[in-house]
């Protein structure tokens, strides 16, 4: 018997409807939203970002405008009424600034510094990782040695020494944060790119005569984005925490651009005397920001990680 008979059943199967193809993003979105906790994180984070963006519109006071700050208002308990007539829902700090306003403005700075440094570090790190993986040979070895060196030293110390040397200021903090973060991206992307490089579509692109740059950035890079996205969330949370730590230690942002860390530091001295809210509320805001980012990042990682897919 050499003829394979076509049974009626097979024909019937061919006429059945084909399920609609889902885009990877749709699949990702569905998987992400399955976890209630991650969704809670997303909601929380959205609220925080919204508050930060709308800060000038929803706060009774601009804490940087020295004319609107009255020393007589200092260390008011949460809920008391300030001299200007508005209620300080979260109390005031040592120089009379409304804490609620201070927190929202501080959030803007903390978020901006965190995100900006994360994006820049990701870009630099990705570029380095891609180049290292694609170029191979000595270029790769040198680049990776630098990455390894950087990664073997703790972030806190590197950042500390850098800002100690460079001084205070937003640009310097962002620089320090970028220096601390890029290596992690570089290593991850390089690992990914090494795997991708061996795949057929790279050969295909090369055989079409595409320039190296185009192959790397148009073809390989998009396939390396998944782990980068995972890292970006976690690293951003770290960057925000690191900036807060540095500011708290007094070597981060200056008093003129108070991030949440600066606010917490300002309140440290008042803790023992009972005005706990000056540190507590900014701390809480910081906490919620970081936790919400981590919750989302965790879920994103679980969804995008092929190994754990059941």
């Amino acid at each position, binding site marked *: *018997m*050499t003829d*394979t*008979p*076509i*049974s009626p*059943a*097979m024909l019937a199967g061919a006429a059945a409807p084909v399920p609609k193809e889902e885009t990877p993003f749709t699949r990702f979105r569905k998987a992400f939203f399955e976890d209630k906790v991650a969704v809670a994180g997303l909601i929380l984070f959205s609220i925080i970002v919204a508050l930060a963006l709308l800060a000038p519109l929803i706060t009774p006071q601009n804490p940087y405008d020295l004319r609107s700050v009255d020393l007589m208002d200092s260390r008011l308990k949460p809920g008391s009424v300030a001299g200007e007539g508005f209620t300080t829902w979260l109390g005031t700090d040592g120089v009379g600034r409304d804490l609620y306003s201070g927190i929202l403005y501080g959030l803007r700075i903390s978020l901006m510094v965190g995100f900006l440094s994360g994006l820049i570090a990701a870009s630099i790190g990705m570029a380095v990782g891609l180049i290292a993986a694609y170029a191979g040979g000595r270029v790769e070895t040198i680049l990776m040695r630098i990455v390894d060196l950087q990664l073997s030293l703790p972030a806190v110390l590197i950042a500390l020494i850098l800002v100690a040397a460079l001084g205070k200021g937003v640009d310097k903090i962002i620089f320090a944060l970028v220096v601390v973060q890029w290596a992690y991206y570089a290593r991850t992307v390089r690992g990914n790119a090494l795997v991708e490089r061996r795949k057929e579509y790279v050969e295909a692109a090369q055989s079409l005569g595409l320039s190296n740059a185009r192959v790397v950035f148009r073809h390989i890079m998009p396939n390396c984005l998944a782990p980068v996205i995972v890292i970006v969330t976690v690293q951003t949370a770290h960057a925000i925490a690191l900036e807060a730590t540095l500011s708290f230690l007094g070597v981060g942002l200056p008093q003129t651009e108070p991030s949440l860390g600066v606010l917490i530091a300002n309140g440290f001295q008042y803790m023992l005397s009972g005005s706990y809210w000056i540190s507590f509320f900014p701390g809480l805001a910081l906490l919620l920001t970081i936790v919400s980012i981590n919750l989302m990042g965790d879920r994103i990682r679980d969804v995008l990680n092929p190994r754990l897919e059941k």
Partner: protein
Amino acid sequence: MQGPVIAVENLKTHFLTRAGTVKSVDGISFHVNKGEVLGLVGESGSGKSVTGFSIMGLIDPPGKIVDGSIRLNGKELVGLSEDEMRKVRGREVAMIFQDPMMTLNPVLRIDTQMIEAITAHENVSEKAARGRARDALARVGIPSPDERLSAYPHQFSGGMRQRVAIATALLNSPSLIVCDEPTTALDVTIQSQILAEMQQLCAETGTALIWITHDLTVIAGLAQRVAVMYAGRIVETGPVDALLDAPIHPYTRGLLGSLPSAGVPGQPLMQIPGATPSLARLPQGCAFAPRCTLASDVCRTLAPESLAHGQDRAARCHHPLDAPKVAA
């Protein structure tokens, strides 16, 4: 005459997943006598491995044995508590897995892993247990067993590792060993060696074997009886020679026909058209009907019962080949 070492009656093992209930094993019955080798043959997804795990009581949630009975030496295994089952495992029934690299723990020594198999069931001194392990290794043909005991798994070749697994299985002299494709991952030459050795060992010790495989050629030289599984059911059983010479079920014939050795040189190899059905969405009626050349309307609506076809042969088919139906 002693009863069979193991008698499985209408076993049903289902997996309750979000996508639906997967009926991996849906009502199978067979038995194995002392010293006998039963070949359990089927494609991947036919439920043969799940059968093996069901016997061992290693079905984890969301899987569950929902019906049927498994009697080992007369003792009912279905429904035993985990503690009671643990005492049976490794002692009265042992199992050998497919990939020897992964079945041995890479960070523990061989002697540790063999001795613990003994001490889990008996109260013997470590020295005595080590001696037994050493003897078992020698028996399966591993040279310098004393040195080998102190070694780690990755220092062995694939064939050697599988021999260690076999030796471990034999340590407590079980009545039955379930072998889940133990030679599939090995070199062809090693395969035949191990097959021959196992056959001899079991003949010597009187241990019954259930040999699970997808490869009919393996069964041909090893087993006395064969059970063919398809989509969670046993579609044919019988003595090996009779079954291979004159299959009753169209699927069995398809399997035999698709063997490379059955092909004519120069002609394309015969294949059974279509694919195995999803075990979560089994068709009504005979599961093989969509691929069967003899399928008729009754096949598509009514699932065939297992009917006897002469001494010690049975098949589930509305249109069995050759042998006329005999009233059971």
